[in-house]
């Protein structure tokens, strides 16, 4: 199990397209992935409804936990996705 905390790069937060890209990647990874907003509870990162319901905004810190599969590579990929601004 590996984890890292990352700051959200997309201008409009983890909504719409960025949320879709993130949950697609988490679901495709084959690993169990959770995302947790600072002060919140961890939710299934492969669930777009659970992810957008967190109301994660630009500049928020979130913690990603990856369990199973090629953990480090999956974590790197997801952190990269979250720190990139997809709304540019």
């Amino acid at each position, binding site marked *: 199990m590996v984890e890292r905390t990352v700051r959200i790069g997309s201008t409009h937060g983890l*909504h*719409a397209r960025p949320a*879709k890209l993130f949950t697609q990647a988490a679901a495709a990874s084959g690993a169990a992935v959770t995302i947790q907003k600072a002060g919140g509870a961890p939710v299934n990162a492969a669930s*777009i409804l659970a992810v*957008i*319901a967190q*109301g994660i905004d630009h500049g928020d810190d979130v913690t990603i936990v990856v369990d199973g599969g090629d953990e480090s590579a999956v974590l790197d990929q997801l952190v990269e996705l979250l720190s990139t601004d997809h709304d540019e």
Partner: protein
Amino acid sequence: MMEIKGTGIGQGVAVGPVVRMAEALPEPVDRPSHLDPEREGERARASLSVVAAELANRGAKAGGAAKDVLEAQAMMAEDPSLIDEVTKLLATGKTAERAVYESFAAYRDLLAGMGGYMGERAADLDDISQRVIAHLLKLPAPGVPNPGHPFVLVARDLAPADTATLDLDQVLGLVTVDGGPTSHTAILAREKSIVAIVGATDAASLADGDTVVVACR
């Protein structure tokens, strides 16, 4: 002659017969299922996955901004958290129709309470819910009708899945009773250069076959 006003999108004039889009399905009755939860679960998962595939398909055909919206909707139809919720409700003896309705409604209320962008996604969830329930009931999916001749589409409001697949050769214009200049209908009407009037409250009185002039200026 009667005049109905709303917010015009784009510029132009379209003339043609009205075809109305089917109204929403009634709320599924909350009665105990005569099937066991496993069987209801199979029904629910099958319909959710058919609707997800349809939405993804429509997205692939539509391309552009509509593709992202429809792909996100397809993911919502097969969302693992939603399916967990449906399964939990089925275990209490509800029907698949009712469990799907209640699960989408719970997320709809949650997102609507957040306002802004999330509030708009709330309407998407109502649309997905209707499609899944229609599939469970073996009723025609709500959506753009296909009368086989050019027509002016009159609807309460249009969801992205509807507007994305409008056949320009058949749809002369759009009139919606609800919705404003930033609604999905308006955004996609602009993108596809379809003459549209949104928020035309009195359009609710139009009937199939009425001839209308849709004028935006």
